[in-house]
């Protein structure tokens, strides 16, 4: 054999071995393993990076400040999905055997794939304000959680906001409301509820799908919008689609205060891209942005200042960074609950599922966590895995996001029956097994 080839092969084998060894975390028995499915690369990295930073930094802060949760350190490992469903499932399969206690897929596509796996592997999936809206029906989906609000709730809040600005729900009759959306499962989620509400309130719904390949090439869509002249537009966009939409809206003189994004379309970079003309752009939100909260200051002190964060200092406290912090707060609270319920220190997926169902984050608890004014209380139950919590409309003031409305209640009376029906349809279509998990007492 050629000596050169042999040497090269040996070096490669050694390198591969070393690098594989280095990425496998040394999991100790006294740690709780929390894999984070994130995306710092690819077309959606612009939205994925700040969220990944916020998620990691909050959990790391708990390790640094408190020594973990209940005295048990968290073992945090990111797995890069690139917002690709196939890679996301690979991440899940490659990490579940390490004792994962919870999954955050950060993609509706990945969430849909994990729904059947979660119950089989007994690991809960926390799809925080994304994923399958019908997963809010806990009796059907005991392993899937989507607090604090579903896409359907969000769309109903948007309609409430429009009604508020137009002078009442009865004034919606004859209005034209557009939905620009990523032509993907995530983007299509609010169509069903908006369609239903359009029949109820008499407005015309116009759909403007944008293919992933055309996220930065939206000229035709906005020409259609110019022709149709919708009174309001709801933007169910993600990644590079959002800054382009804001730019196109500005270019086409669409009134910014009538363009409202879902919470995922509310990144600082999304709005900043539109320059001065983006002032007034709106996006739904369920937490505050900014760094003036004790929790963010603790992150700065224990993580950022120690050089343990991947986030640039000026990005800490931005909207999507805080989204990641909020997400990890839910994870941590579920683990804390699980410890309380079971009396165990090192909990597993089944315990954390029970912890999620018993989630009750009150104002007092928010205060303890340094989150007063950061978010609204959240309560889940055995039946309700979303909570259908209040949302507010954030508004870009040209420099930063500010709260642009009061907290608005979703149309739960309209949304919930539709979700129940959607859950039933899912069960029928997928021969879904009946729930066997007992409900946590008091949940």
């Amino acid at each position, binding site marked *: 054999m050629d000596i050169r080839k042999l040497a090269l092969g040996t070096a490669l084998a050694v390198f591969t071995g070393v690098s594989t060894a280095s990425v496998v975390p040394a999991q100790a028995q006294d740690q709780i393993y929390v894999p984070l499915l994130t*995306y*710092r*690369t*690819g*077309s*959606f*990295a*612009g939205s*994925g*990076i700040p969220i990944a930073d916020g998620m990691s930094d909050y959990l790391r802060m708990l390790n640094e400040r408190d020594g973990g949760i209940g005295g048990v350190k968290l073992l945090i490992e990111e797995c890069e999905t690139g917002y690709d469903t196939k890679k996301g499932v690979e991440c899940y399969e490659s990490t579940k055997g390490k004792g994962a206690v919870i999954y955050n897929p950060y993609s509706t596509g990945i969430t849909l794939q994990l729904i059947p796996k979660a119950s089989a592997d007994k690991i809960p999936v926390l799809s925080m304000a994304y994923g399958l809206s019908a997963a809010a029906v806990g009796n059907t989906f005991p392993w899937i959680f989507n607090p604090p609000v579903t896409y359907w709730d969000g769309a109903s809040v948007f309609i409430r906001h429009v009604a508020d600005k137009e002078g009442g729900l009865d004034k919606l009759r004859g209005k034209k409301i557009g939905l620009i959306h990523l*032509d993907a499962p995530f983007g299509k989620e609010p169509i069903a509820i908006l369609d239903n509400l359009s029949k109820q309130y008499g407005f015309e719904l116009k*759909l*403007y*799908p*944008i*293919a*992933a*390949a*055309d*996220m*930065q*090439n939206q*000229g*035709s*869509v906005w*020409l*259609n919008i*110019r*022709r149709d002249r919708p009174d309001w537009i709801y933007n169910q966009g993600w*990644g*590079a689609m959002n*800054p*382009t939409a804001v*730019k196109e809206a500005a*270019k*086409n003189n669409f009134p910014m205060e009538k363009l409202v994004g879902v919470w995922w379309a509310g990144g600082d*970079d999304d709005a*900043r*891209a539109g320059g001065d003309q983006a002032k007034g752009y709106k996006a739904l939100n369920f937490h505050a942005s900014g760094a003036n909260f004790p929790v963010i200051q603790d992150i700065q002190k224990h993580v950022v200042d120690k050089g343990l964060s991947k986030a640039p200092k000026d990005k800490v406290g931005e909207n999507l960074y805080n989204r990641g912090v909020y997400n990890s707060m839910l994870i941590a609270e579920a683990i804390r609950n699980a410890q309380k319920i079971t009396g165990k220190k090192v909990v597993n997926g089944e315990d954390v599922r029970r912890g999620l169902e018993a989630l009750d984050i009150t104002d007092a608890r928010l205060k303890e966590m340094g989150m007063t004014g950061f978010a609204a209380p959240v309560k889940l139950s055995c039946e309700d895995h979303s909570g259908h919590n209040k949302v507010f409309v954030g508004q870009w003031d040209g420099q930063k996001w500010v709260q642009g409305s009061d907290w608005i209640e979703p149309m739960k009376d309209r949304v919930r029956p539709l979700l129940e029906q959607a859950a039933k349809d899912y069960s029928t279509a997928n021969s879904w097994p009946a729930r066997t998990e007992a409900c946590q007492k008091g949940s």
Partner: protein
Amino acid sequence: MDILYKILIDPFVQMGAAPDLLVQTVWEGLVSGVLYALIALGFVLIFKASGVFNFAQGIMVVFAGLTLVGLHEMGLPAPIALLVTLGVMFFIAVAVERVVLRPLVNQPDIILFMATFGITYLLIGFGELIFGGNPKRMITEELYLPSGAIEWKAFGGFVQFQKIDVAAAVIAALMIAVLAFFFQKTRIGRALRAVADSHKAALSVGISLNQIWVIVWFTAGIVALVTGIMWGARSDVSFALQVIALKALPVLILGGFTSVPGAIVGGLIIGIGEKIGEFYWGPLVGGGIESWLAYFIALGFLLFRPQGLFGEKIIERI
């Protein structure tokens, strides 16, 4: 009957009823088409010189744009950053020739094609490592490119021309003219055409293949940089841009892989065709047809001209 009316009559009624929107749609298509043509030009240049379909052209657009913006963020003034970026693109051209093309000379085309996949993923990884995955704002003003819009009141409505789009069209036209002059009238250009015709014949008259490859990859790099600046100015510079480069594929199918005029005309047909199609016929099927309409148009043309609009008809005697 109603559906036939919607397909065959109504779009034209709409065109007549709102000519301002028709002009606006054609203009949007023209600008997109010019940019598609630029991307396609990068593919054509390399294919002509080396017979390689350069899959990396899309990421070269992103990489060039990111390098420019990234260098500016690091403190370099925009004109200097532009020059350094050109240097980086030249370095990539030399590296590709030395490390990829030269060792693979005389290998089947498919090997070279696969090698460009390698270059693509290398540049993605390298780009993300250096500049991060965050989208970046193109330094339009710093490069003295215009911003704002000109509004033309006409046809009972208005047509809006973004100044950056006008600049993109003018710069692309100039660039194409310069490239045409370079390849038709200069010694290097003639050498490149000789290489395109036959590697062996070119070698036999003393043309250095290696030198030509470097020149061609560098030229494709310049084209990528201009495209990156123009697309970046319209949205952002992000890795999502590389997907737009795939829009050049129907342009190439239509225009032919070896024709510079084909890339230009093909780009314009695809650009205008997809915008008109999406705007007037898209709503009939719920919209979102733009992404595949370009291929539909290109395949339609192929039925009549399998070699593309300007591609050479190859007749092999057996």
